[in-house]
């Protein structure tokens, strides 16, 4: 039974990855999950310099999900290279570094710093709803998506995954724009912008007013967008959004995802990623699926 998948030249032992920002660089979860069992670890977004992120409260629970407005707090590329990469290198899993920035130059600077590092792929976050410039500004305009993708590809030594925002009218258009810009893969969905108001205190629950919604509540929207993107482009898609268990992961794969990322589920169940790997294997067993690639986009 083969669970290996090929992501633009990089072979993952299975399609299960972690979603950026929910898993740090793996250290905090390494006592619950055997990182060697994961297809890849996607790191928390890193910028050219340390970012402080947003004031607190940064998270709020909502029905079947959560809102976050961390604001991409990160220690900056220097410390990241010194501490996080060496930690991850101890494990037999692929390393995908999530890159964030305010400007094209900032993204490019981080991409260049990573060029000679033992990193397997880059995931470019152009869809963070919680930072003013950069982030979302890029991710909601197809022209900008194509341009920044093309810019980054000029400097990237590793395959480039563009992470797309679901807060758009036409996800297929965004997917095509990234593909036109030379993206090697796409990951979607990032979070849906939401808001929560405390009716007793009559104020926003989040200091940032709005936050990115994740969790099982967004799963049907994610499945729909992964399906639409898969119909629109040739490059592989990493599906994410509310995947809580193996069933959700398989649904995403059937919709067209070559690999999947597990995010908020880690907060509900620290062993989620490993259990999803086992659950997918059990499903393949049950239905005698010999190669997981038979399932990718099998429903259309």
């Amino acid at each position, binding site marked *: 039974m083969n669970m290996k998948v090929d992501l633009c030249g990089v072979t993952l032992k299975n399609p299960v990855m972690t979603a950026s920002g929910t898993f740090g660089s793996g250290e905090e979860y390494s006592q619950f999950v055997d990182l060697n069992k994961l297809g890849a670890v996607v790191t928390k977004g890193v910028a050219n310099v340390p*970012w402080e992120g947003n004031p607190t409260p940064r998270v709020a629970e909502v029905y079947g999900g959560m809102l976050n407005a961390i604001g991409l*707090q990160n220690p900056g590329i220097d410390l990241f290279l010194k501490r996080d990469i060496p930690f991850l290198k101890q494990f037999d899993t692929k390393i995908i570094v999530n890159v964030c920035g305010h400007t094209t130059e900032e993204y490019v600077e981080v991409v260049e710093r990573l060029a000679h590092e033992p990193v397997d792929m880059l995931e470019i976050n152009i869809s963070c709803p919680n930072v003013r410039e950069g982030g979302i500004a890029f991710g909601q305009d197809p022209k900008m998506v194509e341009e920044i993708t093309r810019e980054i590809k000029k400097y990237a030594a590793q395959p480039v995954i563009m992470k797309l925002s679901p807060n758009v009218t036409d996800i297929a258009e965004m997917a095509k724009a990234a593909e036109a810009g030379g993206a090697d893969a796409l990951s979607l969905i990032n979070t849906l912008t939401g808001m929560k108001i405390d009716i007793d205190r009559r104020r926003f629950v989040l200091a940032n007013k709005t936050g990115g919604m994740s969790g099982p509540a967004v799963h049907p929207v994610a499945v729909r967008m992964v399906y639409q993107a898969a119909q629109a482009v040739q490059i592989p898609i990493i599906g994410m959004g509310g995947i809580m268990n193996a069933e959700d992961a398989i649904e995403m794969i059937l919709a067209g995802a070559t690999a999947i990322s597990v995010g908020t589920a880690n907060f509900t169940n620290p062993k989620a990623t490993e259990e999803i790997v086992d659950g997918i294997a059990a499903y393949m067993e049950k239905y005698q699926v010999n190669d997981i690639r038979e399932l990718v986009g099998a429903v259309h």
Partner: protein
Amino acid sequence: MQIKFEKTADIINQDKLAEGIYSMWLSVGEMASYAKAGQFLSVYSRDGSRILPRPISICEIDREKNAIRLVYRVVGKGTAEFSAMEAGMQLKVLGPLGNGFTKRDKKAFLIGGGIGIPPMLQLARELDCEKQMVLGFRDELFLMEEFEKQGAVYVATEDGSAGTKGNVLDAIREHGLTADVMYACGPAPMLKALKAYAAEHGIECWISMEERMACGVGACLACVCRSSEKDDHSNVNYKRICKEGPVFLAEEVRFE
């Protein structure tokens, strides 16, 4: 790395201590032998509409019975769900989480405000030195019996229905209390005032912070607090309450 356990715990018993304040003893297995005062557990809801665990501080630890006592306030649907559960039912918990208190062998203030009171009980039991427990309640008292077994207890109530009318500092002043070290847990305004008071009187001051959490293990960077110095892990002036905390030396923390 500090060891943590994910455990489906049996509820040994649950009691209502005061209006909206509940006490729950959980059978948690070996988790109990690793837990210490000032740490907390992540408690998971059984209803699918609530996906995040609730961080609840440890009130007491019974290492013989492998049990942990949680005393919590019902503040929302999640804690309301917990409060409706009975002996024999099960709850998924993760812990022990956070750093816990650093115990110093000096004349001590143990200061709790509101739902910040419960963690002081286990600390009182672990501290073998002169202890003065200063507890600030809104109105109704709880856990008094347990605290009185541990030493001198001074009470402050907002409405003056018991002890000093006012807050914990009013009680300290009224009784002219002094100490060399202070351990405190409670609302931010109280901690901020205690930090100032401690600095002014040269008292070593440890405070337990609170913030909305998601992962509870230091991965998501949700529950941070401002730090005076750049934090080694974050590389910015923010510390993770669930990981480097919840207990900090007051000087480490910057209140806005």
